[in-house]
């Protein structure tokens, strides 16, 4: 019936998941604009974005639960675009887990094997229960398990089929924070152990960065940027990515000089940006958004301004707020260059003068500065983070 690799008990690998020109429209609303995406075989891939960005629709199209309006889906060399979900070597872990309430845990896990006519499922089910550490719960009904346990059953029920790709639709969304962190590590462990391609949909940027090898940041039905977590974080290409992944200070500036180092002016001060870290072509007199992450910035009291090393970017300002959060202190600084700049200082040697109202100098290594196209919405991705929480 299906060309599963499961009969051999091992995932022989069917290659990458390739989406070409995939889109989905509901009437006049376009949930997903035509997109091309390749998920390398064996990788842990995250689709990250706020609710309504099209990430779940994309996932459901891979599963076959949603028919794409255009485009093709390949699993390895095989075009699966027109296959119904029950004929695709792909399994899904649903956000609500969707465990069958009338079956016990082991029946739930055995469901996929049985549907494909496999008779002796006991051994495989036991192995799966072991993998997700639920051996003693085999005869329980789903509603008797905690959220975290149900989640693991959902993973086991999908994984037992040795799919070419495991799709996870916000699988940790319903768990509380502590359990979520635990399950992130757990899922990562399982993925490493079985070596199956995982495609993970989430709105939690920390989750995506912790777990995934590759992250595709989606916004408004499009992929904004694709890359390894560190790369996305250090080199955001758009203001949405800069704001959605962690926090960025974005300062609107005017270009004074171009070259290997772009010199810009903002609020009367001069800043330098490496030319190769500017996403769009900069020209003299043009605008650019200068970005720097809060943890890259050092804070010095205005009295010590002279001791700051030469060659660092500096911005003067006044602390308006500070909050102590243990490992670090987060400051909010207003400056002529920009309002409410964020600075995260490690709590190594705390300077008692750095209190709200204090005049300070923000300084950082110019290499940590990036330049973005000024034609974008400077606040893109900021509010959506709060909405998603």
């Amino acid at each position, binding site marked *: 019936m299906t060309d599963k690799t499961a009969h051999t008990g091992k995932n022989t690998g069917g290659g990458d998941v390739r989406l070409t020109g995939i889109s989905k429209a509901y009437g006049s609303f376009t949930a997903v604009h035509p997109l091309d995406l390749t998920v390398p075989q064996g990788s842990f891939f995250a689709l990250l974005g706020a609710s309504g960005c099209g990430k779940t629709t994309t996932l459901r199209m891979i599963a076959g*639960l949603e028919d794409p309006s255009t485009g093709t889906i390949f699993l390895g060399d095989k075009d699966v675009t027109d296959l119904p979900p029950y004929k695709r070597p792909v399994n899904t872990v649903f956000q609500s887990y969707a465990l069958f309430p009338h079956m016990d845990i082991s029946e739930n896990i055995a469901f996929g094997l049985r549907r494909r006519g496999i008779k002796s499922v006991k051994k495989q089910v036991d192995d799966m229960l072991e993998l997700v550490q639920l051996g003693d719960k085999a005869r329980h009904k789903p509603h008797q398990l905690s959220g975290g346990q149900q989640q693991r059953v959902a993973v086991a029920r999908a994984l037992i089929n040795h799919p070419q790709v495991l799709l996870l639709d916000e699988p940790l969304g319903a768990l509380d924070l502590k359990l979520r962190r635990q399950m992130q590590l757990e899922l990562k462990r399982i993925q490493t152990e079985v070596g199956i391609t995982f495609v993970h949909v989430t709105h939690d940027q920390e989750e995506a960065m912790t777990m995934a090898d590759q992250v595709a940041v989606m916004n408004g039905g499009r992929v904004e940027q694709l890359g390894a977590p560190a790369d996305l974080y250090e080199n955001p290409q758009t203001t949405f990515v800069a704001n959605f992944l962690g926090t960025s200070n974005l300062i609107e500036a005017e270009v004074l000089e171009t070259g290997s180092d772009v010199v810009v002016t903002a609020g009367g001060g001069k800043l330098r940006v490496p030319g190769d870290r500017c996403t769009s072509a900069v020209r003299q007199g043009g605008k650019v958004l200068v970005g720097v992450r809060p943890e890259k910035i050092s804070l010095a009291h205005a009295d010590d301004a002279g001791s700051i090393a030469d060659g660092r970017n500096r911005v003067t300002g006044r602390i308006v707020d500070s909050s102590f959060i243990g490992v670090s202190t987060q400051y909010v600084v207003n400056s002529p260059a920009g309002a409410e700049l964020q600075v995260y200082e490690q709590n190594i040697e705390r300077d008692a003068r750095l209190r709200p109202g204090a005049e300070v100098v923000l300084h950082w290594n110019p290499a940590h500065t990036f330049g973005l196209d000024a034609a974008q919405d400077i606040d893109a991705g900021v509010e959506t983070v709060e909405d998603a929480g």
Partner: protein
Amino acid sequence: MRWLRKNLVVIAGLLTLAYMILPNIVVMVFSFNKPNGRFNYSWQRFSLDAWKDPCGVADMCESLSLSLQLAAWATVGALVLGTMIAFALVRYRFRARGAINSLIFLPMAMPEVVMAASLLTLFLNMGIELGFWTVLIAHIMFCLSFVVTAVKARVMSMDPRLEEAARDLYAGPVQTFLRVTLPIAAPGIAAGALLAFALSFDDFIITNFNAGSTVTFPMFVWGSAQRGTPVQINVIGTAMFVLAVLMVVAGQIITNRRKKTATA
């Protein structure tokens, strides 16, 4: 006074229960009566005569068997149609869905006697001979509303992801329906079936209008009440009551046991 305040709810509950059960008790008690004459309305003395010979009254057991058959077929008919309608109404968006949603309640809302008379007119005008089939058609019609209501409530609370999960786990459309949809909808369907059976079994008005020369059990009881009430009627009534109570108790025990293994 204080005691009364504390136990008021219990007392009210017991009184209500008594109010509901008393008629059944009377029926039960009088099934052991040995009346003088034809009417079983006053207590004379204890006897097991009627219980020993429940079919001793001419035509009564025939009418009972007919009623049971009617109820069974009406239940099956209403169940099949009603389940499909319920799924259609919950799952699909189609034209006139809203209208159907309200029209389905019409048989429940319309006075039964009006319904009965209009059905009779319809059957007569269409030249259909009155009898088993006309009664069955009528019963399926009014049972339908109850089945749809019961099943719909269940289907609406069903997570559509469950069926998606089944399809995702290699179950084709048929397997998905049999393995996941149907078992989960089963309690609603069972509730609908019980309602339909009970309603069909003791319907009198619509049946009486449309039965022609066919005599169902309620019609038999009504007919005989004009001339005298055999004790056997009470025997059948008591038997049905006890059967129903046993079914409810059995259901309770099963669910309780399930819950117990659930918490264990």
